[in-house]
């Protein structure tokens, strides 16, 4: 029996359970209601229907889910016991490949055998699959009937079916929300696990405070001591994400927010706001391409023209500028929110004193909104330092500790990509270093976000 057929069968059973339980509840309730007591009837008939239907479906469904994982093993064992299996090659991969191929043909996932040897196994497979399929379906049906019958006996006017069904709904919602914790744990575990292995090879102090980043020398077997000093990466990350990008994004974002919220006509605002938001919606790989192919060469030419030494065509400036532009909508919407959160009465108060709009903004609104704006900027920074594609494509790989924005620097995210794709070497300190960098990045952005959210929240509360 195929998956969809079983599914349909169960769905049909559930529907029958629903309908019959509902009908029974309805009948019983009509009688009970005649007695006149309001609380003689607890739940609507539909809830009784759901209660019985769920009892029919859930145990059988759980069983089938387990069976789907257990049955293939049983099937394979049956097939291996078949005489046709005696001719299988000893080598595990070819053997399992043949078996898999036979299974695919038997189950219809594959049309014909690439390997003639597999053909012999198809029939035994088909038989075994059929056999275990029938067993599974029968067991599922028994469970469905048992569950449904048990629930059906409980249908009474005063039975709190609604409460039971709603409890299940709530449990489902709760489980869904727990997934966020599981994901977070997944991140922490996956980063921590590999990082611990890394730190067993490389001294954490050397990693965090070393100024020489050269995983290649580690790979060449010169030892890990001087190879994994991540300071140049941290510097590059800060230089691009927290300095250059912010120099672009903060003034432009803040002033855009001020203009659009305080000056622009509603019509202008209505159009400009989504247009600026597009800047945040452009994929970073597009920015990266743009930075690498259009901005970076132009900046380099400019730097050479004004006689700057060491100008690289993969410059911190190119990546930072483009990243700054990308962040503009982010800063402006945070600033927008913060300024909007300053109560209208502040603005009115200042205007009523005879202040002009710009005086009101500069002397009252911005100072009042400052914590919110700062929080927003911190969030923007955390986003900028986690940004990957722009720096991968435009910032370069040279781990330089430089203040020259026209020089090439590298960042944490660039190195993660570099270490894990392209020329990789698994299980060496070099690969594991990516996870250690990821861990640092995770912790830093986490802290930035926690601080920023705290600041923003506190500030919001101040005006509530």
């Amino acid at each position, binding site marked *: 029996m195929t998956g969809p057929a079983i599914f349909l069968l169960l769905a049909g059973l559930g529907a029958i359970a629903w309908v019959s339980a509902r009908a029974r509840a309805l009948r019983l309730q009509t009688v009970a209601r005649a007695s006149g007591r309001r609380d003689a009837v607890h739940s609507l008939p539909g809830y009784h229907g759901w209660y019985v239907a769920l009892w029919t479906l859930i145990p059988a469904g759980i069983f089938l889910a387990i069976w789907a994982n257990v049955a293939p093993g049983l099937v394979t064992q049956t097939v291996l016991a078949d005489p046709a299996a005696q001719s299988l090659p000893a080598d595990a991969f070819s053997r399992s490949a043949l078996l898999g191929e036979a299974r695919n043909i038997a189950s219809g996932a594959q049309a014909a055998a690439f390997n003639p040897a597999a053909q012999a196994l198809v029939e035994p497979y088909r038989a075994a699959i059929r056999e275990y399929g029938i067993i599974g379906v029968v067991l599922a049906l028994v469970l469905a009937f048992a569950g449904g019958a048990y629930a059906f006996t409980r249908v009474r006017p005063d039975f709190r079916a609604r409460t039971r069904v709603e409890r299940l709904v709530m449990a489902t919602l709760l489980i869904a929300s727990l997934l966020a914790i599981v994901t977070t744990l997944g991140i922490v575990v996956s980063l921590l696990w590999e990082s611990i292995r890394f730190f067993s090879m490389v001294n954490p102090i050397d990693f965090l405070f070393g100024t020489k980043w050269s995983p290649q020398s580690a790979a060449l077997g010169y030892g890990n001591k001087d190879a994994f000093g991540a300071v140049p990466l941290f510097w590059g990350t800060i230089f691009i994400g927290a300095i250059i990008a912010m120099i672009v994004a903060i003034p432009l974002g803040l002033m855009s927010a001020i203009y659009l919220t305080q000056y622009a006509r509603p019509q202008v605002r209505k159009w400009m706001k989504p247009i600026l938001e597009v800047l945040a919606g452009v994929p970073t790989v597009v920015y990266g391409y743009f930075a690498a192919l259009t901005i970076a060469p132009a900046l380099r030419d400019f730097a050479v023209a004004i006689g700057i030494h060491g100008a690289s065509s993969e410059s911190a400036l190119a990546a930072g500028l483009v990243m700054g532009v990308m962040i503009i909508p982010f800063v402006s919407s945070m600033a927008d929110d913060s300024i909007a959160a300053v109560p209208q009465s502040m603005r009115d108060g200042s205007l009523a*004193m*005879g202040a002009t709009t710009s005086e009101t903004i500069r002397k009252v609104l911005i100072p*009042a909104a400052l914590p919110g704006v700062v929080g927003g900027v911190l969030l923007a920074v955390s986003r900028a330092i986690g940004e990957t594609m722009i720096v991968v494509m435009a910032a370069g790989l040279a781990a330089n500790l430089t203040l020259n924005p026209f020089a090439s620097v590298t960042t944490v995210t660039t190195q993660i990509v570099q270490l894990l794709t392209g020329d990789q070497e698994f299980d060496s300190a070099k690969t594991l270093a990516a996870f250690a960098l990821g861990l640092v990045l995770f912790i830093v952005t986490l802290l930035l976000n926690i601080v920023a959210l705290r600041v923003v929240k506190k500030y919001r509360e101040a005006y509530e």
Partner: protein
Amino acid sequence: MMHEPQTLTPATETKMTARDVKVFYGDKQAIKGVSIDVDMDHVTAFIGPSGCGKSTFLRTLNRMNDTVASARVEGAITLDGEDIYAPSMDVVQLRARVGMVFQKPNPFPKSIYENIAYGPRIHGLAAGKADLDVIVEKSLRRAGLWDEVKDRLHDSGTALSGGQQQRLCIGRAIAVEPEVILMDEPCSALDPIATAKIEELIHELRGRYAIVIVTHNMQQAARVSQRTAFFHLGELVEYGVTSDIFTNPRQERTKDYITGRYG
């Protein structure tokens, strides 16, 4: 509707006049032709049920309605005979001359000193630091707050109690030497004791400014004002000497309102 101004005893000096003022929010008319005179050295109370247009009309008097994009004002309003909606009128200066106090105390999130100094600073009224100190002290004294805050002028204005904050806002308005002070339900967010203090303060300020106060509390209107204007559905129903309005309203609507038939 009454387009004729309702003037009172001729002995008083008229500070502001409004003639057939209409205010629209978009298509919706909130004030339907109001004419009124605001007298010097008196407290004028605006009363009326919620939404009748008291605040809207009050805000036309210092052009605060300019800040509402959809608002449009028709009719003539003068201050000392000068049309305040004339192009030559500078709004910034107008608002310094016609100060305003709001329903919810709204001190800036700055120090008490800075709150008071804000107006004089932006208008350039103080010659220097010493001058500013003088202005701050004088304004706080007039607002009846000096003794309570003189030792903590550099604490935040928002750390004061509600009543103190409201007096701080009054002091802030006074600091730019206004001629008229508009108050929109200045006590409705305050407790009875703070309310009594503000009412007392209004009494004291009366001799120096023309004061207009919007209030929901009819007893308060009776206590603090010498003139009362009753608004209803955007119209000025009745305007007169406070004691007359409360004891002997000429209009049925006024009477119904005062006796609590609606609102």
